[in-house]
């Protein structure tokens, strides 16, 4: 078990290093030098100003030199300076990471709870009207463009419905908090209130996907011999489901959950952009467009780290949940 974990850790590190090289190279080669971008907006800027700025930002070194410089300082725990924000990257990332994790954790929790519950129900009532309805809704949830859903939600729940129905609560059209709100409980409720729309959007596709996974996983399990045996022995149906079927059906879901993290992060980039949610996704989008390499690299690595860690956690959880697995 320990050897297994150690090996997975080494894998994780290799993945992260490989990714950093890949992404650094890609980023550096994107056209539109940040300094040229600044220069273009100002007719009075002089070539000597431009070259001074290029030197200032260290843009004249070859790529590998810049990568090693970057890697060395990262290993020392220094993620570098944000070119645009002029502050250490760690300072920018910290807050954003928390915001993204809030959004992610809430969405995943809701999507998982709802998805698994509905999936089980659907499987236990296969081919019923409910099962069909659930299936259609789950497919619908997977077919909706995320950003489109977000914008429609804003228009419906922040403008249209409050305009039609006087008592309808007006949901905030983006943002994470009302500026200047009193700290403590009011601030807490305010944040929760701001979470409602983005979480509903982000949770939709996850919910749909897990409903589908859970349904088919459950269907597979209840056809297994041991479930039949349990039934044949006269074990009450409730107990069969709870004790035998459910646990085994949940096992593959753990892996699927870990595997779906990158997909959810994709959704988070779009959701954060639509809702102006000050998270990593939004930051990354701006950093890539603004050629803020240090920030983009840090965000990308953090996202990769989240995925690698969630895979590792899934491996551990798997080991605990399923005694059939042996590690060598």
């Amino acid at each position, binding site marked *: 078990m320990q050897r297994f974990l150690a090996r997975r850790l080494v894998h994780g590190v290799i993945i992260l290093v490989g990714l950093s090289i890949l992404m650094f190279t890609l980023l550096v080669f994107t*056209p*539109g*030098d940040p300094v*040229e*971008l*600044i*220069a*273009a*907006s*100002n*007719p009075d*800027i*002089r*070539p000597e*100003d431009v070259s*001074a*700025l290029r030197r*200032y930002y260290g843009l004249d070194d070859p790529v590998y030199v810049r990568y090693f410089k970057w890697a060395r300082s990262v290993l020392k725990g220094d993620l570098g*300076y944000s070119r*645009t*924000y*002029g*502050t250490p990257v760690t300072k*920018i990332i910290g*807050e954003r990471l928390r*915001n993204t994790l809030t959004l992610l954790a809430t969405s995943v929790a809701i999507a998982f709870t709802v998805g698994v519950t509905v999936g089980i129900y659907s499987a236990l009532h296969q081919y019923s009207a409910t099962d069909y309805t659930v299936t259609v809704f789950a497919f619908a949830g997977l077919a909706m463009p995320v950003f489109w859903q977000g*914008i429609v939600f*804003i*228009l419906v729940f*922040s*403008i249209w419905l*409050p305009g039609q129905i006087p008592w309808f*609560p*007006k949901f*905030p*059209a*983006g*943002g*994470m*908090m*009302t*500026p*200047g709100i009193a700290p403590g409980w*009011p601030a807490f*409720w*305010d944040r*929760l*209130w701001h979470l409602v729309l983005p979480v509903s959007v982000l949770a939709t596709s996850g919910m749909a996907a897990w409903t589908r996974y859970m349904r088919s996983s459950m269907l597979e399990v209840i056809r297994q011999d041991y479930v039949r045996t349990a039934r044949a022995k006269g074990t009450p149906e409730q107990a069969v489901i709870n004790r035998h079927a459910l646990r085994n059906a949940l096992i593959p879901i753990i892996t699927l959950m870990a595997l779906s993290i990158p997909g959810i992060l994709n959704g988070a980039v779009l959701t954060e*952009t*639509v*809702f*102006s*949610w*000050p*998270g990593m996704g*939004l*930051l990354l989008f*701006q950093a890539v467009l*603004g*050629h803020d390499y240090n920030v983009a690299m840090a965000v990308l690595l953090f996202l990769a780290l989240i995925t690698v860690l969630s895979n590792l956690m899934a491996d551990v959880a798997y080991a605990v949940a399923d005694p059939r697995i042996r590690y060598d």
Partner: protein
Amino acid sequence: MRDALIRAVWAAACVVLAAGLAPLSGAAQMRRDAVVIGMAQEPDILGPFSTMAAAGTIHNSLFAFFAPFNEKWQRVPLLVEKLPTLKDGDWELLPNKKMRVTWKIRRGFTWHDGRPVTALDARFSYGMLRNPRTPTLTRFILNKVDNILVPNPADPYTMVVQWNERWPFANAIPYGFEYPLPRHVLERQYLQDPGRLRGDPFFRAPVANGPYRFKEWVPGSHITLEAYDRWPGERPKIKTITFRFILDAVVLAANQMAGSVDATEINNFGIDQMVEIERRNPNVAAHYTEALIWERIEFNNDDEWLKDKRVRWAIAHAIDRETIVRTLFQGKQPVAHAWLPPRHPGSNPNVKKYAYDPARARALLAEAGFTMGPDGILRDPRGRRFEMTFMTTAGNAPREQTQQIIKEQLKAVGIEIRIDNRPASVFFGTIVPRRQFPHLAEWATLYTPEVMPFTEFHSSQIPSAANNWEGSNRRGWRHAEVDRLAEQIGQELDEAKRVEMMRRLQDIFVEELPGLPMYFRLHLTTSVKALKNVKPTGLGSFYINWNSHEWSY
């Protein structure tokens, strides 16, 4: 039974949650001494090293400018006692085209830490910005200034700016920057390492000198300023100003419609959106402010076809600019006939006008040697299809719509247009500054009332590898008289003479038509009607909140 119980608990929880949250949503509107300004951009940093309009907006409330422009486009002294004039003798012309301008800083202004604002701060700022090791964006005007002196140690409020060449606006702005920076806060870091100055905490939370002081910056969300209690003028009635960053223009518009923001600036709104906001929320005023934004299509004057004046004229006659402007912008943005809008004193109302006249366009093209091919597209004298590339910024709706219409209208006279748009970062990063557009390219330039034609029209300012891509004459236009005029205007201190030369220059431009003026863009902002005294200027660097200390509900 258990199911029913669970359902009941869920329902109860939802009701409690909704009831607890609902009243909070209206909280922001109830406080009537706060203003929330929504912006579709978040600044990188604050202070003069930022190029972003969002930073410029915040500076308007945060800093006291030497002499800001008002809504009538006049400089009004604020941090200085008066604008120097030749007549009063505080603006002196010296031999060898040198000049000396004396400024007096008004007493009573303090930095937000309580220290007085003096001429020493201005002198420090000048030296710091001019130092080649600091990331100053442009030293165009700074380099014309030889030195700044504070001659009398007993009077740290008087400074003398020594110019090493003539500059017509030497009495409008002391050294090319609108506001000073606090010497006592920045000097230590500056002396230690000017190269690392940009990372100083000051630029994330400036100690400024304006009516509002910095309170907090929640990255990705908002910046809040609060009224400064030692502001020497009348006390601001608005106690806090919050700048909220909502990057999606549609969502920003939704926020203004819903009343979650009180005003918008740097909002990326189109005319249609402005009209829609006003219609949806009658409590919001949409401001269409005349500005100095020139939208035009540049011709690449080195192109074999476009070198011919008749081809350029033909294109102008083939495009129905009136209709484009009327339909796409609801007639609110005027057609441009030259490059300065009517409100600028140098504007020339009598320039030649190219009316929509496809027949004339066809005749001109025939005269230039083009003949109609079998596919309805012209052939040049050497038999090549008359197909041109038209580039602009991808994702910019009004430009892409204009392009579509132009494509159809040019096709009607036998010119095929191939659209090749690039993201703004690439378009402005390399295509435009390196003149990589083969035929047509559309973009806008934002002028100030103090614009000088030299960098954009002088033939020495055509960017090329040889001159290290210097200059903004991207159309590649060479004209001897224009060169002479551009040189003279930059040195001429008499406004009447300058205006006359500007008008002459525009006459030549329109006659030669090295680029096709399209329209003058308006500066679009919104604010709730309850907010009084909102007077957008329409000028760059002077945003909706330039007079926020005079606002009230």
